[in-house]
């Protein structure tokens, strides 16, 4: 863990959002999940988004990952206005520039690790030989070289999340978005996953991590606190006195 405090010099701005809002209309009621969020994230950053349940973390994450579009506000990804992209362009950005890691892993249950990791490569139009080669390589990188022909139900939770991380990495994305990646894991396995994430950071990946757990957020180099759809605090590093335990 001696590397924990080493901060790699930040690169150019990847994500630039300004005054983003998101409202969900539920019949009569309007849920304001985000109420004006501005944020800049640079390449090589390792950012944790913290906040209590329902504070809008996932909503923000989906926005950043081009899965969702804001009700208002501006979003530039790698200098391009996301609002102007059509569906196919958004899919292409998700495919090549963004790697998603989900709390529930979201692996295809009947496909092997290899086939799961191949999926983004198929959507990228990579030929089958290179696909298998690349997927197997990335699986080996996350420590699953001997599990490539296993299906998710033949793997432990930690191993499943490793497959998911390999899948997020396989197209060499600009950023990795992980929404509560340890939420479904015991603390020991969670810690192992966080070590892997740390490793990715050290190898030049940009990481955005959503969590409501202090221990997990403590791995990041920058922390953004959300509350009721607003940024409450945005600071460098992890300050134990500030980052109080939050109610679930």
């Amino acid at each position: 863990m001696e590397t924990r405090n080493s901060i790699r010099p930040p690169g150019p701005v990847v994500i630039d959002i300004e005054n983003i809002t998101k409202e969900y209309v539920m019949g009569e009621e309007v849920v304001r999940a985000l109420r004006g969020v501005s944020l800049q994230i640079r390449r090589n950053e390792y950012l944790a988004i913290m906040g209590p349940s329902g504070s809008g973390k996932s909503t923000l994450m989906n926005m950043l990952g081009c899965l969702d579009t804001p009700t208002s506000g501006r979003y530039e990804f790698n200098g391009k206005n996301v609002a102007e992209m059509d569906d196919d362009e958004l899919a292409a950005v998700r495919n090549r520039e963004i790697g998603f890691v989900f709390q529930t892993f979201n692996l295809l249950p009947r496909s092997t690790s290899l086939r799961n990791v191949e999926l983004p490569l198929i959507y990228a139009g990579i030929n089958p030989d290179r696909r298998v080669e690349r997927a197997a390589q990335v699986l080996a990188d996350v420590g699953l070289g001997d599990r490539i022909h296993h299906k998710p139900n033949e793997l432990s939770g930690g191993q499943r999340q490793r497959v998911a991380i390999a899948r997020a990495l396989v197209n060499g994305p600009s950023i990795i978005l992980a929404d509560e990646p340890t939420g479904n894991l015991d603390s020991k396995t969670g810690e192992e996953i966080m070590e892997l994430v740390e490793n990715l950071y050290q190898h030049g990946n940009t990481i955005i991590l959503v969590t409501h757990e202090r221990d997990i957020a403590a791995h990041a180099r920058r922390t953004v606190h959300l509350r009721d759809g607003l940024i409450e605090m945005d600071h460098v590093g992890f300050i134990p006195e500030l980052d109080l335990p939050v109610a679930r």
Partner: protein
Amino acid sequence: MKRFLYELGESWKIAAAQMRSNLTRSTLTALGVIIGIIAVTLMGTAVNGISIGFDKSMAVLGDDVLYVTQWPWKPVDDWWNYRDRKKIKTEYAETLNRMIAATPNSNLVVAVPTSNFMRSIKYGGNQVNNVFVLGTTSDFIITSTIDCTAGRFFNELESRGGANVVVIGYDVADALFPSENPIDKSVLINGQLFKVIGVNTRQGTFLGLFSWDSMVAMPLGAFNKYFSAKTESDVRVKVKDKTRLADAKDELTGLMRRVRGLPPEKKDDFSINEQQAFKSTLDPMKNSIAIAGLFITGLSLFVGAIGIMNITFVSVKERTKEIGTRKALGARRRTILLQFLIESTALCLLGGFVGLAFAYLMCFGIGKAVPSFPIHFSLGLVLISMIVSILTGLFSGFAPAWTASRLDPVTALRYE
């Protein structure tokens, strides 16, 4: 383009995996399509068979033969105008033949008289009723496609002499001589003995239309000697060049008017027909049978398609989260659309294959059990069935696949 192919390959794999993991469900759903395809294919073979049998029956008439008759071969509203026409006499044939011989460059070859009557025919203890007894000349073989499987047709000598000889149809021979060679045996018709000199090659019957198989032919002389004069007669005339049938018809009309001695101001008091006239009367009937049959069996395929549509909707619902995940990983709308279309199509195609196999076996069985049943399996039918299966798959998969492709990624990911 390359990406499309990869996505296509991926979709097929998913479809296969999906079917394997939901085996019972897939089988039951495919059953609808299987039954539909069996029904449609069997109906197709029947329509095919009817069409072929029809053409075969038409071929009996010959496409290069004109028929001089009292009544036209088409439904008429003013039947009273035809009722009082003079009968066609068999002697006309001789007159016509003399005229043809005297006409340079005639487009007609030969005129052949035929008279017919329904009679029963006996040999030993065996009897066949309602046999179509035909009296004609030896020239008859020139005008018809008739062939002998054993023996021969009667010759000119027998024809002129009115010898007591007969050529019998295949079915007649079969019924009268189950275990004997019919040639040179004597059969009893109308109390007279006739020597069998030939048996026709099997032609096959078709929906009660005329077939040589249940016919007996004898020299006209013999026919006239033993059967009452109240027989139906006509004269058939072979045409030299069937591409100039209309000219031949005009020529024959002219000859017949001379035979009948009609002054120019009088209308024809006879009809000249050809195969085509018969065809155009029966074709619409044949087509309505085909359309009605295919429509009704098509309904069962439609029910099968609805089943597939239903199951594809279920599949989309069940895999909402998977769809969300795929979208998060970069699947485009058309990727998802394609995936579910291929799933429904694969299911239909599989159903189609199985249905076709069953239909083939059934056709085979029916053909063995009831040889006369008009049924005909063809490669074209296989291709059409496959295309119909694919179209059914696309049709039934479209709505669910479209729904899936339009799913909002976030909503899909949040779906539990």
